[in-house]
C-alpha cells in the first residue's frame, strides 16, 4: 500500500495531527476519494489546495497521476508563479 506523507500543516485539522498515512490507491483521484472517506473535508482540501510529488516529480490537478506502492508520495501546497 502506498505511503503518503502530507507536508506542511494545512491538513492537520482534518487528520488530527497525523502527517503519514497508508492509503490503498493507485491514482491521485483514488487517493483523494480515500482521504475524503477517512477524514471528511480532507479530500477536497487536497484536491483543491495540494499538489502531489511522486518520486520527486510534481503533479498538479492530475487525477491519473500514478501512485506505485514503492513510490515516494508527498502532498505539498500547490505552486503558482508570477
Amino acid at each position, binding site marked *: 500500500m502506498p505511503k503518503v506523507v502530507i507536508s506542511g500543516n494545512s491538513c*492537520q*485539522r482534518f487528520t488530527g495531527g497525523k502527517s503519514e498515512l497508508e492509503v490503498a490507491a493507485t491514482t491521485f483521484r483514488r487517493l483523494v476519494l480515500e482521504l475524503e472517506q477517512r477524514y471528511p473535508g480532507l479530500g477536497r482540501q487536497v484536491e*483543491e489546495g495540494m499538489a502531489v510529488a511522486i518520486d*520527486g516529480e510534481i503533479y498538479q490537478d492530475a487525477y491519473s497521476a500514478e501512485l506505485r506502492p514503492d513510490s515516494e508520495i508527498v502532498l505539498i501546497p500547490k505552486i503558482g*508563479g508570477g
Partner: protein
Amino acid sequence: MNYVGSDLRVVGTRPVRPDGVDKVTGRAMFGADMVLPGMLWGKVKRSPHAHARIVSIDASKALALPGVRAIVTAADLPDIPSEEAFVGEGPMNFRDLSRNCMARDKVLYEGHAVAAVAAGSQAICDAALELIDVTYEVLPYVIDVDAAMADDAPVLHEDLYTANVEPKPTKPSNIAKRVYFNKGNVAEGFKQAEIIVEGHYTTEPVHQAYIEPHACLCSYGADGQCTVYSSSQGHFMVRSYVAKLLGIEISNIRATPAEIGGGFGGKTLVYLEPLALVLSKKCGRPVKMQMTREEVFRASGPTSGAVMDVKIGARKDGTIVAAQHVLKYQAGAFPGSPIQPGCMCGFAMYDLPNVEVTGYDVVSNRPKVAAYRAPGAPIASFAVECAMDDLARKLGMDPIELREKNGARNGTKTHYGPTHQNIGYLATLEAAKNSAHWKSPLKPGQGRGIATGFWFNIGGESSAAVHVAEDGTVVAVSGSPDIGGSRASIGMMVAETLQVAADKVRTIVADTASIGFTHVTGGSRVTFATGMAATMAAEKVVEQLKQRAAMIWDITPDAVDWRDGAAHPAGTNAGAFEPLSLAEIALKAARTGGPVTSEVSVNAQGAGPGFGAHICDVEVDKETGQVTIVRYTAVQDVGRAIHPSYVEGQIQGGAVQGIGWALNEEYIYDKNGKMDNPGFLDYRCPVASDLPMIEAIMVEIPNPRHPFGARGVGEVPIVPPMAAVGNAIRDAIGLRMESLPMSPPKVRKALDVANGDD
C-alpha cells in the same frame, strides 16, 4: 516524442521573433491602443484613507454632469460569498477579488476603488470623480507586519481567524494563517552545531513596475455577450474571473489578448475589466479604462514586505546540521501572500538533516499583494543566502565550497518533503566557480558576493494548434499571451518538429473563442507547457502529412518517412517516388481528406525546477552610501535553451529586477498610511546608467519531461540577486546590511554606526 538527444536545426538558434517588426515600429497593439466606435472612457474614484468604513456614496451631482453616461459602485456587482476557487494562478478567493476591484462596506487601503464613472472624455471623467461624494468613517490603520500581528492591532476583517493553529482562535486577527514545515529535529541538530549564525532581516514591499499600466476596452452587448480586450498575462483567466465576479456565463465572454507591456505576475488577476464591463452594461457603449502610474502603485498588488529570523548551525568542517527560519509576510488588504512558496524555497538548494520553517500570512492596510516573479522565494532567499555568507566567513570557507558541500543533488530529500530528481544545482555552482568573473581579481575597494536560488516552475493547461496552409506554409496558434518572446520559441519547436525553416512557421496568439483553454503566462510555464502542446500538435500534423503522401503515392502510411520537411518513401520497397514537400501535399489536401490541421490541449506535468547562482561585484561610495554594481554574472540551469537570446533575456531581466529590489526599490509611507512615492521618479528602478552588462551563463541539464528538454527560466533569476548584492556589500565594507533596500541613506547610516559616529 523526445528530441533531447537529437541533432536540432532550429531549436537553439536565434531567429528574429515573428512579432518583432510590429514592436520596433510602434504598430503592435497594447492594452490602451485599441479603439471602438462609440467608445467612452472610464475612471475610478479611489479612497484617500488607509482604512475606513464607507458610510455613504452620493453620485447624483456627478451623474448630472454633461457627458457622464454611467456610474457604478459595489452595489452594481454581485455580492459573492467567500469561496476558494482555483482558477488562474493558485488559490483565489473571489469574494476578496471582487472587493478588491470595488470596495464594499469598507476601504482597506489608500487607493482602494469605491466607484467608477464612464464619460465622453478623460477630462469629463476626472471632473465627475470630483463630484462623487463619499462619506467615510476613518478607522485606525496598520501597515507594518509586526504591528499588524500585535494583539491590539486594528483588525481588517471581522471574520478572519488564523488558520492552521490549535486551539482554534476565538478572536479575529490579521494573521490569516500559519504555515509550518519540519524535517528532523532542529533542537537536537543545533546541539551538534559548532558554529551558529543568526540574522534578523526585513524587506519592504516592491512593485513589479511593468512599464505598461493596466488597460482594457470592454463591451457588454444588449444580449449579454461581452468582449474584453485587455493587457493581461492570461485572457482565459480574465474571462474566468469576470465571469465569476459578474455572474456571466463563460461562453458569453470573448477575451482577446492585447500585447502586454510587462506583467511579472502582477497581471495574473483583474482590476479594471469587471468595472469596465459593468459600466458598459449600464450605458450600452464600449468603455476603455487605463490606470495612471499613480494608480498602478497605489492600487495594484505589489509583493510582500517581510520580517524574518534565520538561524543556521554547522560543524567546523562546514556540514550544516540545523536550519531554522521564521518568516512573516505582508498580504496586503486580503489574505494571500506567497508565504507557502517562501517557506519552501529558502532551503531548497540544500541537503539538510534538520530544518524547521514557520511562516505567517498577515493582512494590513496596503494594496492586496499580487504575484511577483517566483513569489515568496526572493524574500526568503535574501535571509538564507546572507546567513550562508556569514556562515562561510565564520567557518573560513569559500562560499561556493560551503554550498557545494551542503548542496542539493539528485536524491536529496527537501525539507518540504519531495526528493529532488534531475536537478542542476551543483552544475550551476560548478559553472559559477569556473566563470571568468569568479576567477577575475577584484580592484581595491571592491567587494564580491555570491548567492544561489531555486524556483519550482509549473506546467498546467495549455492549448496550441498547427495549421498547414494551402501553399505549405504553417500557422501555429498559441493560447499564451507573449510577454517575452514565446511566440518565437513556440514557432521554432513547431518548425523543428516539421523539419522546416523557422520562417516557414508564423505563430500567433488567439483569443478565447479561437483556441482551447490555456492557463496564464506566468510560473515560467509557456515554453514548457504551451511548447509541449505545440510540439504534440506538430507531431500529429506530421502523421497526417505522411498519410496524405501515402494516398498520393497509393501506398500504405507505414511506408512513408518524414524527413527534412518532406515525405519520403521508407526504403526502396515502398516505391521510387520523389519526395513530396509540405507545399505539394498541401496542394492536394482537399482530395486526400481535407485540411491538414491539429489542435492539442494538455495539462502538462513534470515541469522541472530551476536553480541559479549569481556573482556580483560592487563598489561602495563611503561618502554617499551609493552602491555601484561593477560586474554581474548570472548562472542558471535552463534545461534546454530553445531560443538562447530570449532565455538570456529572462535571466538578465530577472537579475536586474532583483538588483533594483536590493538597492533602491521600496514603498515609502507617510504618517497617514499613504504612499509617498507612487511614481518612477521616487520609486527608483534601475536605469541603463546604473548597470554593467549582465553576463548570463546557461547550463543545460535537460528536463526529460519536455520534448526538447526545456525548463522554465523566467522566475529563477530574481531569486539570488538581493543576497548576491548584500554579500558583495559585506565584502566591500565589512558590514552586513539586514534590511532592504540597501539604499544610500541606509548604507551611510550603517557606516556611521560602525564608525561610532551615529
